[in-house]
């Protein structure tokens, strides 16, 4: 074991007090950043996510402009007499799908759908889960019981089965479902709603656990002794301490929900057939993967890269937020 530099032991064993070395004060955010930037994988994940977001925003229109092919434009020459699509060539970089559409253009547009669904559904789930978890954990008692059991019920519900019902019920008319409180339009809104309903309970459980711990902390007692009300404590004392974990879980939830959308689309329950999404393209590949490998490779690769990027970033963020982690 070595001593700190300011305490140097002389040969006689006496301790000589030297001039202390000045240590710059570091803010929590700076400490966080210093830890995060050492994690190259997380940074790479972050860069990939930025690139994917750019693709989601600009990729589709640019691909359309470059190739001259619309996302729903069919090309008879890109399927054989039996309707089996042809693979990549100079004009169709990713080949064609089974309807003879340009897979490259659809994959680029698909990024928009998949990321939009993933981010929006995760955002809504986080918000609901945060509110429910904080209220349940902070107030306890019957409120906790009611909210926690509600979340448990949702966790026990067969998700795909309910998703099938909701999507079918809300897709049978042009106007969608009238749920009294709001009108649920078929297509993306239904998919987002279904994913949100089945995602928030996980977040609520986690937030409740953190809140149960935080409400016993000294700084909460101090705030209360200074006259702060429940809402103020929740907003100014509890919530800031939940931000770190929430960001981490958000990065893990987004890819999960992208995969959920892909699963729904794979089952034919996701976005409309004319809206490109990676899951829908993979659904198209299900009967053709052994003769049209490109249908699985390109959207599958984007899906894997996206999932991994979010997971690596989330992993890095968790390490960076957690001062006890071994680095």
């Amino acid at each position, binding site marked *: 074991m070595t001593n700190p530099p300011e305490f140097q032991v002389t040969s006689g064993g006496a301790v000589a007090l030297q001039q202390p070395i000045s240590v710059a004060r570091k803010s929590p955010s700076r400490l966080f950043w210093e830890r995060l930037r050492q994690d190259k994988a997380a940074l790479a994940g972050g860069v990939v996510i930025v690139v994917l977001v750019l693709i989601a925003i600009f990729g589709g229109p640019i691909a359309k402009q470059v190739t001259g092919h619309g996302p729903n434009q069919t090309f008879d020459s890109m399927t054989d007499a*039996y309707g089996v699509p*042809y693979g990549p060539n100079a004009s169709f970089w990713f080949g064609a799908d089974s309807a003879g559409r340009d897979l490259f253009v659809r994959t680029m547009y698909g990024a928009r759908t998949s990321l939009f669904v993933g981010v929006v559904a995760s955002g809504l789930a986080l918000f609901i889960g945060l509110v429910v978890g904080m209220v349940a954990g902070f107030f306890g008692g019957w409120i906790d019981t009611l909210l926690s059991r509600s979340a448990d019920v949702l966790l026990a519900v067969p998700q795909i089965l309910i998703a099938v019902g909701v999507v079918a019920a809300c897709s049978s008319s042009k106007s969608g479902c009238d749920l009294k409180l709001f009108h649920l339009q078929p297509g993306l809104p239904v998919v987002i709603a279904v994913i949100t309903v089945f995602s928030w309970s996980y977040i609520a459980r986690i937030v409740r656990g953190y809140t149960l711990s935080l409400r016993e902390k000294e700084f909460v007692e101090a705030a209360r002794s200074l006259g702060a009300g429940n809402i103020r404590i929740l907003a100014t004392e509890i919530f800031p301490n939940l931000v770190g974990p929430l960001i981490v879980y958000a990065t893990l939830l987004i890819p999960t929900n992208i995969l959920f959308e892909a699963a729904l689309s794979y089952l034919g329950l996701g976005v409309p057939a004319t809206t490109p999404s990676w899951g829908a393209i993979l*659904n*198209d590949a299900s009967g053709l993967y052994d003769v049209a490998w490109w249908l699985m490779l390109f959207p599958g690769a984007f899906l894997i*890269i996206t999932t991994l990027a979010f997971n690596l970033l989330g992993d890095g963020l968790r390490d960076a937020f957690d001062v006890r982690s071994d680095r």
Partner: protein
Amino acid sequence: MRKPLRLALLALPVAALAILTAGCGSKSSSGSSNNNGSSGASSAGGYTGTYENGSAEKGGTYTVGWEQSFGFTDNFDPTGEYLGNAWGILDNLLVRPLIGYKHAAGADGNELIGDLATAVPTPTDNGLTYTYKLRSGIKFGPPVNRVITSKDVAYALDRLADAKNGGQYGFYYSVIKGWDAAGKNGSHVSGIDTPDNNTLVIHLTKPTGDFNRRMSMPATAPIPSNVGDCFKGKPGAYGRNVISSGPYMIAGSTGSFTSCSALKPFSGYAGDNGNHLTLVRNPNYDQSTDSYRKNYPDKFAFVVNSNADDIYNKVQAGQYDDEQSSPQPKTIRQYVTDPNLKKRLLVNGGDRTWYITMNLTQPPFDDIAVRKAMNYIIDKQALRKAWGGPVVAAIGTHIAPPAMYNNGLAEYDPYATPNFSGDLAKAQAEMKKSKYSNGTGTCSASACKGVLMVADTRAVDNRMIPVIQADAKKIGITFTVRSINGAYTTIQTTNKNVPISERPGWGKDYADPYTFFGELFDSRALIPSGNTNYSLVGITPQINTEKKLGVKGNLNNVPSVNNLIDNCQTKLGDARLTCWENLDKHLMTQVVPWVPYLFANVATILGPRVTNWSYDQFSDTTAYSQVAVKQA
């Protein structure tokens, strides 16, 4: 170590996926080749009919892979079962209605024969009375083991009349005197007499030219009353205890019937949700009473398999002999292009029309000019390709397939376009006549924008939708597509007011065009849910109110064809076919409820053990009574 590993994670799975998919693709490089894909085995009219691959011998097991589930509509109970593939099993192997078929392909297969009856009777009493003489000595299989009498046929008809027993096509028999009254109180149908054990007399309320055909459907086959009574008011329950009157019986049908409580479901129809059906020889069957069933195999095994690829792999490997599935385009291409496999792909006419239905009450399809324009603009070749090309179907150009008219209307196409690929000029010429177009040739009204189209979620729907959207857009019609898993439920509900759907298809119940026109265009048959007249042909405000259909739209001046249907129903023979042909033309030119685009084929792929096979035109599936396999 950790960080480089995590970085590498970004690249490794993609590389792995690339290797995996490339590996899969290496099985067939033709996917990216410039294979023009000739239609190979079939085009319209070039049907296979039969297949011979050696001499037919008695014995062996004929195994059929069945995709997803049996999909029985009434659990295989003959009284209610309405699935064509189930009819193929019932009529070929398990039951003998009074009237039958030769279990052959084409027109020959639609010719009526006496099955349980000695002959096909000619009606008397101005077409109002049919007298059937039963063959003597035909017995029920175990556990009933007694001679079949006319009372057993009368019992089956009474059972069908009583709605509580789950009959799904009892409407065909409402022309029998007292049918509707018996249906309400569960009594004997007064218009059915059994003067002796070998005679059945049926009295009708009006001449019905296709009545003998109606007596060929499985629900009319004899049922022993002591067993049938065990399942009174329990739709579908008899399906696991069907008592054989044919050459085979459900495995496990043994012993003697003593009581309902002692009667257990036969073991041959078992598994979760009935995932396998095994038939074995009926020991009481007398081949000398039957001229058309060959009955080569000792056993039939129908096995549910959820994986279509696995089914075709097993058929190719000889583990299955036949399949009840829908070959994907890749499978068809494989069999058409491989000379060794080609002869095992058998293509026959399916007596089914696939069509886009347009609702005559909903804008913009309440305008006949728009409906005609749609007929001109749709690229039927592209839609056929979406289904898998010429092997899968012939191009549909009118309501009922030509086979229904004994190949009449084979060349009839009132909306002919070059190569069936659509004609923009003709479509625009029609659209100019529309109230929605302002004479521009494209639909400029808001009614044409974002029109609701209900589609299904099958792969073929996803391939068709962009074609239809792109075509309609050329004449100014855009769609809001709603893809629903099981879209039929929605389009069969009248108050959903669905303007257009690409989902429908319709196949015959028996070989008479009435089975198209009566159910699809007769406004008297309109019902709020389960409706099959999707276009609402013949609807009036009065019908809408009386039948509580809940239709909101333009109900005035919707054309009706009820009188034309009634007129054809009184005719027989060639005059009858000509009448139906004229009605088909009338519908296509004066009503225009559909864009018919395919006359379906049935593509069947056989395993290498099969030595004899024939198509059954009546049930549009394998003629199981004609097949044979090599011994193991």
